């Protein structure tokens, strides 16, 4: 009896508490999780509107309805008629995946606009890259060199590096996958 009380009981209680906590968490996860893959959320629509002035875009999917991913690009959002598209990109800035942007490309493969969906960088420092005037400097860039020639923001070197990497990814993805994106 003493053995049971001293050795078995504690382990049993601990196991019980662990499994209870985990069960409750699984339940809470099922309740709160929303699968947004392949859905045009309000944030994405607002981003499209900001870059092109319309939200008449669709997420590029294959025949089975799965979102087509390119290297470094989470989703491509396309308007096949106007030949415009936007790339949703996560890039590391100072913090992991701190830069979550939409990069819009016009019909000639040049950057038409960049807009942040969320910016998880250090407030006051890294968040300086989330500035309309700064992001406007990238408009018209259509190759890596052009993106690279834009200056970094003082005091936000990691975040500037991140946003430039994101735009470079967008430019390269466009030039390499143009046919696939517009189904030509």
């Amino acid at each position: 009896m003493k053995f049971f009380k001293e050795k078995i009981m504690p382990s049993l209680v601990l196991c019980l508490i662990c499994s209870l906590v985990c069960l409750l968490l699984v339940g809470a996860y099922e309740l709160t999780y929303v699968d947004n893959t392949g859905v045009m959320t309000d944030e994405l629509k607002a981003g499209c509107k900001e870059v092109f002035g319309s939200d008449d875009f669709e997420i590029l999917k294959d025949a089975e309805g799965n979102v087509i991913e390119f290297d470094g690009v989470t989703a491509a959002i396309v308007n096949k008629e106007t030949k415009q598209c936007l790339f949703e990109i996560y890039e590391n800035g100072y913090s992991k995946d701190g830069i979550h942007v939409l990069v819009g490309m016009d019909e000639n493969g040049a950057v038409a606009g960049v807009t942040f969906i969320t910016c998880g960088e250090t407030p006051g420092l890294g968040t300086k890259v989330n500035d309309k005037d700064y992001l406007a400097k990238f408009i018209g860039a259509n190759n890596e060199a052009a993106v690279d020639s834009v200056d970094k923001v003082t005091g936000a070197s990691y975040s500037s590096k991140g946003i430039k990497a994101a735009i470079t990814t967008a430019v390269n993805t466009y030039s390499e996958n143009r046919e696939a994106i517009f189904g030509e």
Partner: protein
Amino acid sequence: MSDNTHGAMHEFVKGIIKENPVLVGLLGMCPTLAITTQAFNGIGMGLATTFVLVCSNIVISMLKKVIPSTVRLPCFIVIIAGFVTLIEFLMKGYLPEMYSELGIFLSLITVNCIILGRAEAFASKNTVIHSALDGLGMGLGFTLALFFMASIREIVGSGTWLAGTKFMIEIPWVHDNPTLIFIMPAGGFFVLGCLIAVINKLAKRKPPKEISCENCPNAAACAGKESCEAAAAK
């Protein structure tokens, strides 16, 4: 009855100023230094910690008779970690921007010494209501300290206040000439040092209160005081 209400009131109020966990107790330094670059983040982190603190205090004081003392530490940790994960879900859903700014420090609420310390020192010995009030008071004290420190750093370091909310205020001259060092890591240590010095002055506390294992409640929970003192003395 009135005595009981008085006691409950005391548990609630003590954490806010008199035993403020950060400025007086010198606990929970890591989040205090790390995420106080913006007042709004300070509030978010403080309230998230308060939520975990209150919930874990309630659950632990309810289970205090069930949990054998040999495994109480792992039990406490699991319960706390569970609530931390829950607040992660909530914040990811409702405040995604803040979720990514707080980043890893949201998960690290699990090992915040305030929470484990209160579980060990208070909740495992007191009634549910008192434990809940104690958690609420300590949590609000923590939130207040974070908010205060974050306000100083944000105003001097980036010239705004409450950025990220609709109450954002731009401080006219400072906004164009911010003292960036205040929102960099070095500024965190500096502001906290000065704040504690001010509190020392106001409270006329005998200064040499050191950060060491003596006032770390975790020490009592994890190892027993002897090894702590041995470590400090060595």
